[in-house]
């Protein structure tokens, strides 16, 4: 399928932007806990974070497939921003008619077992429960949450983190992952809205998983590029180590896993919104499971090829590999999603397996 011209232009300009602005210094500083505000400003100016929204809501009616393609580029450059989270927060909030922010936003719950609930309280609402490991919550201008209401799931918008009790935390890439606790927190009526069609806690979890899978496919491309380039520069025994068959064979495996990860993430992206919910869920599960598997194998090889230098803070490989090790667990690990794939196949039955696999394409 030919890539559209406008998609290519978008990806080229975002690649340039991240290349210039998401430097190792910027990422290193963000990892100390200081939000990359300057980087956020230039990214926000492109309009990409809210581009999926309708024009009436300040967006550009952009295709989600294009935005996911941008997330792959962001993953390639280890961009230390809640870009996916802002996109998803905008999606949830606008569907519920809630006010957005043009600052960084975040969204939750991101853990499958976390539950929030709201009950009526006079003219407003009262929010209780816990949302663990919310990305960049302590830096967010808005937090958009999905809570169980009296008549089903509702969207909740908080300025910052509202009156949540915040326990800061981070993943092993030092990206902020904060836990928000709510004990009968009062909300005004206009902070809560009914979810639009197709938006739910489950759908958010799936789109989050696909976002991580897509970002991982980009990070894998970067790790593979670094390992391949390094192997051709590093000389030992009088020749570049890329000339040794043992190294070549490892790099070939790395290239195969990377290609598989990109293909798997694309499967999920292609399924978004185009086919029925069950099929979308299945293909996103395939994507997160397969990309996670690739990440585990690929990180091992990328480090092995680099030798000791790849194990240093100074050298940039770890920016990608620590993110891969973090992201493979976020929005559900690869074993969790693989179990969903397997359960779905088993429930569907052995004799329907082939029909299921070939149902759409």
């Amino acid at each position: 399928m030919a890539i559209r011209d406008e998609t290519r232009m978008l990806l080229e300009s975002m690649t340039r932007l991240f290349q210039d602005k998401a430097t190792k210094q910027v990422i290193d500083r963000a990892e100390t806990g200081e939000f990359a505000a300057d980087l956020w400003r230039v990214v926000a100016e492109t309009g990409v974070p809210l581009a999926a929204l309708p024009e009436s809501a300040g967006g550009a009616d952009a295709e989600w497939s294009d935005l996911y393609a941008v997330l792959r580029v962001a993953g390639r450059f280890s961009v230390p921003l809640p870009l996916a989270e802002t996109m998803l927060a905008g999606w949830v909030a606008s569907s519920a008619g809630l006010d957005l922010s043009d600052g960084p936003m975040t969204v939750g719950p991101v853990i499958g077992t976390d539950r929030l609930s709201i009950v009526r309280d006079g003219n407003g609402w009262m929010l209780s429960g816990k949302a663990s490991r919310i990305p960049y919550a302590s830096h967010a201008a808005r937090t958009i949450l999905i809570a169980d209401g009296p008549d089903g799931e509702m969207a909740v918008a908080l300025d910052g983190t509202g009156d949540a009790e915040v326990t800061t935390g981070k993943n092993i890439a030092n990206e902020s992952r904060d836990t928000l606790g709510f004990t009968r927190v009062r909300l005004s009526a206009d902070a809560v809205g009914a979810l639009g069609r197709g938006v739910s806690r489950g759908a958010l979890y799936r789109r989050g998983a696909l976002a991580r899978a897509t970002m991982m496919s980009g990070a894998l491309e970067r790790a593979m590029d670094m390992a391949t380039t390094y192997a051709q520069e590093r000389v030992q025994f009088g020749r570049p180590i890329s000339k040794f068959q043992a190294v070549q064979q490892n790099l070939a495996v790395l290239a195969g896993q990377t290609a598989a990860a990109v293909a798997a993430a694309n499967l999920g992206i292609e399924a978004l919104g185009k086919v029925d919910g069950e099929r979308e869920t299945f293909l996103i599960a395939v994507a997160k499971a397969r990309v996670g598997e690739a990440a585990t194998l690929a990180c091992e090889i990328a480090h092995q090829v680099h030798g000791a230098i790849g194990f240093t803070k100074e050298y940039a490989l770890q920016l990608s590999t620590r993110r891969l090790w973090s992201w493979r667990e976020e929005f559900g690990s690869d074993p969790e999603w693989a179990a969903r794939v397997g359960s779905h196949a088993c429930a569907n039955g052995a004799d329907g397996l082939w029909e299921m696999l070939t149902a759409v394409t």
Partner: protein
Amino acid sequence: MATPMFRFDPVELPPEALVMRAEVRDFIKEHQHLMGFNKSEFNRDFSRAMGRRGWIGMTWPKQYGGSERSAFERYVMVEEMLAAGAPLSAHYIADRQSGPNILRFGTEEQKQFFCPKIAAGELTFCIGMSEPNSGSDLASTQTKAVKVDGGYKINGTKLWTSNAHRSDYAILFCKMSGDGHDETDRHAGATQFLLDLKTPGIDIRPVINLLGEHHFNEIFLTDVFVPDNRLLGREGNGWNQLTSELAFERSAPDRFLVLFQMLREMVRVAGPTPDRATAAALGKLIAQLVTLRSMSLSIAGMLHEGLQPNNESAVVKDLGTRYEQDIPVVARQLFPIEPELEAIDTYVSMIARSTMNAPRLSIQGGTREILRGIIARGLGLR
């Protein structure tokens, strides 16, 4: 990024491919008694029946017996047949690589003589590449052709030739002798012939594999005469032609669908509500399969556009054989049972067969190491 990335752009199957899928499924239902993991893979009647439907040489020009269908229709037809365990061996090599190579390099007379017969399911081809001392290193072929009056005289030995004992022709790879080619150039003098296996001087002997079955053969060639009109392509162009033939061989979906029925039986044994660990192990395999299929379809798309995705084909074969070799490993972890080839229980015989067959997968059609060498070359490392 500096490194070349292998591209597998997503492909959406065109409507005619979906029509094809329905037709093939009906055909499979009609021939259900011939399908299955433990049935004979070689059935000339079945090949003829497929030929009557126009499903051999599907993408070839009509003037040479083809149906001028798209690469996607062929892909769908092949994957349906493979997943069902259809007996394809009597025509598969000819359909996949011999026919396309004849169409690409053959003379007009050769195209008209061979291709319609292949498409009708009347002509079985085998491969003629490996030798006792020339396996992965095919350029070291010791089989020699000498120009004689009206043709060539060939001497040598071919080995590991699947189905030679029931094939009509082989595409024989060898080297010219006494033609004055540059002996320091390992690819010089390489030549391919369309070898009629009934020619005097050919002795085909079985090599029984470790399952106790007769697929492999050793072919002894003693002063075998091949007429001028059965030279394929040009003298000395054999290496180039062989590379093209291998690209056809490596890009097909048979590299990851041979054990599909085993995966299906594992889902059956797991039952409708497996525990989490079982579901995750099966799901991991299924996620690999779905991804492989998407990558393979993407290759069909590239072939459709006239590209030569040799690196991408090597990637899919390498990942595909790993996946297929994992199937019996996962099976014995999830549902351990003592394997027995002749068992009545389908799962028990499948685990026996797939365990014993596993080593073959990463050897045939290019060993794992050779494929990874091709990928490394594609990355610019060699």
